[in-house]
């Protein structure tokens, strides 16, 4: 898999983690387990900054724009459709042997897409 694509997926999962730990209901449950979600968020945000610097500027900026617009900037392709907007992807696009070896975006919504091979 393309390294930038791997980092974009990790960045997305990290953003989900941060968002979850800022969710009041999840915070409440994590505290009941003896965990400290607020402290974890501080550390995760530092890690996020470090990770985002490893992503090429163009993709990083695009990720931030997509995330603020849609909430999710990276989505898997499921049954040859972008799972963000459910648009059927062109056959040539889907059949490409290089899929996941390049950073691809959905031609309809622009989200980063990857194949769960």
């Amino acid at each position, binding site marked *: 898999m393309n390294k930038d694509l*791997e980092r974009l997926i990790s960045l997305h999962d990290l953003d989900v*983690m941060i968002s979850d730990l800022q969710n009041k209901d999840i915070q409440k449950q994590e505290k009941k*387990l003896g965990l400290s979600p607020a402290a974890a968020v501080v550390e995760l945000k530092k890690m996020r900054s470090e990770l985002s610097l490893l992503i090429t500027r163009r993709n990083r900026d695009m990720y931030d724009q997509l995330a603020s617009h849609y909430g999710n900037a990276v989505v898997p392709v499921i049954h040859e459709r972008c799972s963000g907007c459910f648009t059927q992807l062109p056959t040539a696009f889907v059949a490409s042997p290089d899929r996941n070896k390049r950073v691809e975006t959905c031609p309809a919504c622009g989200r980063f897409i990857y194949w769960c091979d």
Partner: protein
Amino acid sequence: MKRPIFSNWSITSVTRKTALAELLKLFSFQKTTEELLLTALETREQAEPTIVHNGIAMPHCRSILVDDFMIAVGKSEKGIPWPGKKVKIIILFITPVKPSGPEEHMKLIKHLAKLLRTDGAEKLLKADSPIEAASILHFTLQESKQNEQRP
């Protein structure tokens, strides 16, 4: 909450990261998926170790790389440095990122918190088998795909 779980009742790893990798192998993911999930779980642990009881860790995250709940329970007789404290039982779970939000993820944490805060944690540490552990957690033990592939 009768969810299927996988188990490894004889974890041989001696570090947190390798123990997480050993448990992730139970799900038989593709290599890249496995590596990315390991990164996510390890990142969470680096931010704050998820030790929820003396001897029990609960590494967890939500990820776009899974489309269903992935739960595994593991046991190490010798204990794994986490890194400050020794962990003998690991309850690992990864939940999918759904448009509906983190509701199901929260429910699972709530379910485990409730069990562990009563006498579940002590029972789990004394459990003799993965079947017993699954029963304590109110889950259903599932045969690992990794084991199924063995001759």
